[in-house]
């Protein structure tokens, strides 16, 4: 392994950006206990605005810089004010909210008053110094990074070390509740942290932009965020200096690896593999210390209060629900007869996304394992379809792909035995990225020691073409036929998940999620139950992947980008985390709405980002909650109608008693009850 010294410096300059981003992540994590997925996007808004001020309005660079950094700081503070409503919510929800936030921030960059007229222009740099190391020319942007990044981090470190705000932040990192009780203004401190993080992110983006050639909005993309996360994790999500230095280290390692690449297609796959392994190692090594303080937070009720209305015993209410489902099903099944090819295709997409969302309901909603990498599992299924899809009948392919994906999923799940919550989310995101850029992108590779060639990737990573098989004589080549097929798969999936929910699988998963210790002591095998969730979820994602592959017919590695995994998380959160109809509604909302309003990125991001935030903030039960309320309304209407017909006044006491158990979920003791219920008695069994 030989390299010129310039590679080291080049890597270090890249690494300075990762380090800055990592410092921002740590800053937010220390005060809000959340991995801020909007950390990159906060600054991108500022960087875009800087270009606008500089070129369109002809501002002096420094004035423009100050204004943009101030803008990012303000946006950071504003974000905190929005997320503050979630102060007492599970941290995982807040993390999903930051994903929504980052999507809303993306919208900012395309608003006319922020977006510059010409996007593809050289990013302004205030200096023109350059220097050579060997034959390599370092640009003014590199020089700027070398000077500014260390200064900014030192200033921040000094602020945290010596100011009272810094002391408050450190206290909050240790124990927010105690800090609060001893008079620290927790929320205001957290606003300060977000303001700082916003400014820091702006500096990062301004420093990183000159070296980018692509559109500005891509400057701090998810994979870059993942690199920063890696650095932050090495710093244990607490130490600013370690995170910063680790960021530089990550940059150097990455650059060295890339320098030594001889074959560009397999080489980048190797880099991704190494990064993924590094990430896993950092997570596993840090697992113990990372989770020291988080267990208390995770003790709080995990889901969002949907369980209370999951099953009411009222027969009429059930009847209303069933008729609703029946009518919907009939209408949807008839749709392909009346709509065009495009909409039939869309219907297939929605159905398949529905299945993927359901797989996440099982894993995240019930088992509490946050997966940001569901499309990694979908990719496994699609990959299997690409390899053996033409060889075996579809009816066999679906369960085979499902089972194989379940196996992969269990392997990923093994990490979940050590890490969970936010960290599991990070590792699954890493997995999805690894699947996309490493496994799928490498058609064939040779094992180093035994010289055996394995062809596990997509046959053609850029564009793999597969043809739809027939299904029991039904030719799936027409879009309407495939729409029916997808609907069938979805209906079967729903039935399967319903069985899991009602017949004993879900309660085991939820029990282990809610109280691992008690479940173990009660004789529920904890480890096996956790892995079971991964297996079930992977199974569904796997056969959904087969369906997705056949639906699109032509796909590339980009079909399985991590952004889709995040889209699925949004679906489940918008729909209602542990609700079956919720997952379907979420898929309909996020896949269907864009189709109605045109499938531009703007609409897509608006429906997911803004919608996601709004749902988390104002409708914790998701769309399922709305649906349930609708059902209750209809039931009440029907009841009234019946009462009017039979001549009994609507205030009939028996009708009230019917609604018994669900009548007062908050304080059951206030409800009327048969004498002696709930007492400490123990009659003969």
């Amino acid at each position, binding site marked *: 392994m030989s390299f010129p010294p310039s590679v080291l410096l080049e890597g270090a300059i890249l690494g300075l950006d990762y380090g800055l981003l990592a410092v921002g992540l740590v800053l937010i994590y220390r005060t809000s206990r959340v991995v801020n997925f909007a950390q990159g996007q906060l600054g991108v808004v500022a960087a875009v605005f800087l270009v606008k001020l500089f070129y369109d309005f002809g501002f002096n660079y420094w004035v423009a810089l100050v204004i943009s950094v101030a803008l990012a700081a303000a946006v950071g503070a504003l974000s905190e004010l929005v997320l503050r409503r979630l102060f007492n919510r599970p941290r995982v929800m807040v993390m999903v909210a930051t994903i929504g936030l980052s999507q809303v921030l993306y919208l900012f960059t395309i608003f006319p008053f922020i977006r510059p007229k010409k996007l593809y222009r050289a990013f302004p740099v205030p200096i023109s110094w350059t220097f050579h190391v060997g034959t390599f020319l370092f640009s003014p942007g590199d020089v700027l990074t070398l000077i500014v990044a260390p200064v900014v981090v030192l200033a921040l470190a000094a602020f945290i070390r010596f100011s009272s705000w810094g002391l408050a932040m450190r206290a909050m990192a240790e124990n927010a509740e105690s800090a609060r009780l001893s008079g620290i203004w927790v929320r205001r401190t957290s606003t300060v942290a977000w303001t700082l993080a916003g400014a820091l992110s702006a500096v990062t983006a301004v420093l990183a932009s000159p070296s980018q050639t692509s559109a500005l909005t891509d400057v701090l993309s998810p994979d870059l965020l993942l690199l920063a996360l890696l650095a932050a994790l090495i710093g244990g999500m607490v130490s600013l200096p370690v995170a910063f230095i680790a960021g530089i280290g990550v940059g150097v390692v990455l650059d060295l690896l890339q320098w030594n690449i001889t074959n560009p297609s397999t080489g980048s796959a190797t880099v991704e593999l190494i990064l993924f392994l590094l990430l896993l190692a950092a997570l596993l090594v840090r697992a113990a210390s990372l989770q020291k303080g988080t267990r208390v937070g995770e*003790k709080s*009720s*995990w*889901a969002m209060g949907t*369980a*209370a209305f*999951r*099953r*009411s*015993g009222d027969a009429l209410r059930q009847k209303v629900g069933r008729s609703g489902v029946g009518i919907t099903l009939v209408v949807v099944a008839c749709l392909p007869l009346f709509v065009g090819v495009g909409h039939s295709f869309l219907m297939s997409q929605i159905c398949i996304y529905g299945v993927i969302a359901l797989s996440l309901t099982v894993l995240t909603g019930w088992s509490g394992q946050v997966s940001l990498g569901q499309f990694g599992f979908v990719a496994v299924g699609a990959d299997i379809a690409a390899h053996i899809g033409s060889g075996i009948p579809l009816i066999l392919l679906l369960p085979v792909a499902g089972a194989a994906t379940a196996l992969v999923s269990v392997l990923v799940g093994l990490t979940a035995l050590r890490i969970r919550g936010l960290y599991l989310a990070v590792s699954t995101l890493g997995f999805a990225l690894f699947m996309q850029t490493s496994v799928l992108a490498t058609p064939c590779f040779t094992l180093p020691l035994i010289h055996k060639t394995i062809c596990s990737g997509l046959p053609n990573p850029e564009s793999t073409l597969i043809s739809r098989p027939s299904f029991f004589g039904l030719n799936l080549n027409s879009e309407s036929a495939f729409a029916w097929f997808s609907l069938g798969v979805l209906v079967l999936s729903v039935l*399967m998940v319903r*069985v*899991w929910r009602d*017949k*004993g*699988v879900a*309660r*085991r998963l*939820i*029990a282990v*999620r*809610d*109280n691992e*210790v*008690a*479940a*173990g*002591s*009660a*004789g*529920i*095998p*904890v480890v096996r139950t956790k892995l*079971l969730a991964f297996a*079930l979820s992977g199974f569904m994602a796997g056969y959904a992947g087969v369906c997705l592959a056949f639906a699109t017919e032509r796909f590339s590695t980009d079909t399985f980008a991590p952004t889709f995994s995040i889209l699925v998380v949004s679906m489940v959160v918008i729909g209602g985390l*542990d609700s079956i109809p919720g997952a379907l509604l979420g898929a309909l909302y996020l896949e269907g709405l864009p189709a109605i309003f045109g499938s531009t990125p703007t609409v897509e991001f608006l429906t997911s980002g803004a919608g996601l935030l709004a749902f988390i903030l104002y409708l914790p039960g998701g769309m399922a909650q709305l649906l349930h309320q609708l059902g209750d309304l209809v039931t009440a209407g029907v009841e009234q109608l019946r009462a009017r017909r039979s001549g009994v006044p609507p205030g009939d006491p028996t009708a009230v008693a019917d609604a*018994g*158990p*669900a009548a007062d*979920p*908050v*304080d*059951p*003791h206030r*409800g009327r*009850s*048969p004498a*002696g*219920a*709930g*007492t*400490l*008695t*123990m*009659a*003969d*069994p």
Partner: protein
Amino acid sequence: MTDTAPAVAAPPPSGRRSEVDDPDAPKKSPARLDINELVVAYGGLKAVAGVSMAVEPGSIVGLIGANGSGKTTLLDAVSGLVPLAGGTLHLDGQDLSDYIPEERARLGLVRSFQDCRLYPELSVEDTLMLCEDARRRVSVLATTLQMPWARRAERQKRQAIDRVIGSFGLERFRLHSTAHLSTGTRRVVDLASIVLANPRLLLLDEPTAGIAQREAEAFIPLLQRLHQVTDATILIVEHDVPLVFELCSKVVVMQTGEVVAAGTPDEVRRDPQALAAYLGASDEAINVSGPVPAASGPAPSDSGNPPAEPG
């Protein structure tokens, strides 16, 4: 609802539920627990420092001591939640060291937790079904495909919990998630799941914690009844000294990880070391709950709803 003591019905003339609908289950008898020189260490601190005791089959043994004396840690060690730094545990002569918690549960070792948090998002019904799940496993594949035996097992489980829900008066709360229940009702659910778990050795960790004094008194006959119904050996950690003295045939006093006194309630009550360690010099501590009737508790006519939160 009035805040009065519970009614305790007469013991069943014959046949516990396990014998009725679970003919495959081995005929169970109360277990014997032998603790020998048990040591549990957290870092350098010995939370349990060489405790030995024998818990006779069918007895109720009370474990008392100040906070931090190692009582709960001892229960954790017996149920397998903390690793042993030394000593042995034998259940009916069988070394427990190779059994993880869920396997110990299958041996009939059941425990309740001090916080009694249960599973916040599960309904009462599901919480109880879970106990049945642990005892009778059905494979996920069979459940998914709704095989006849899976349906039958689920039906039988439901019948079993229906009986328990009925006898504990939990019908009204059946579909409530446990997070929405008051502490007292949650304790009742916990006791109901204990009955379902069909224990041979029952570890109770402060069953009256978080319950008003008057309601705690009501627990004595309830626990006696629980002892009768489950026919299990009981090891109970409790701060309510009168309750322990009333209930237990043997009392063990712990201090800083060691046993300082053990014996019948009368012996312990007179033991100077026990008094110094925990009970205090005056009789006041011993009589917190006031004199307790020796018989089967207050009359059933007083029956009300003690577990409900006052007010």
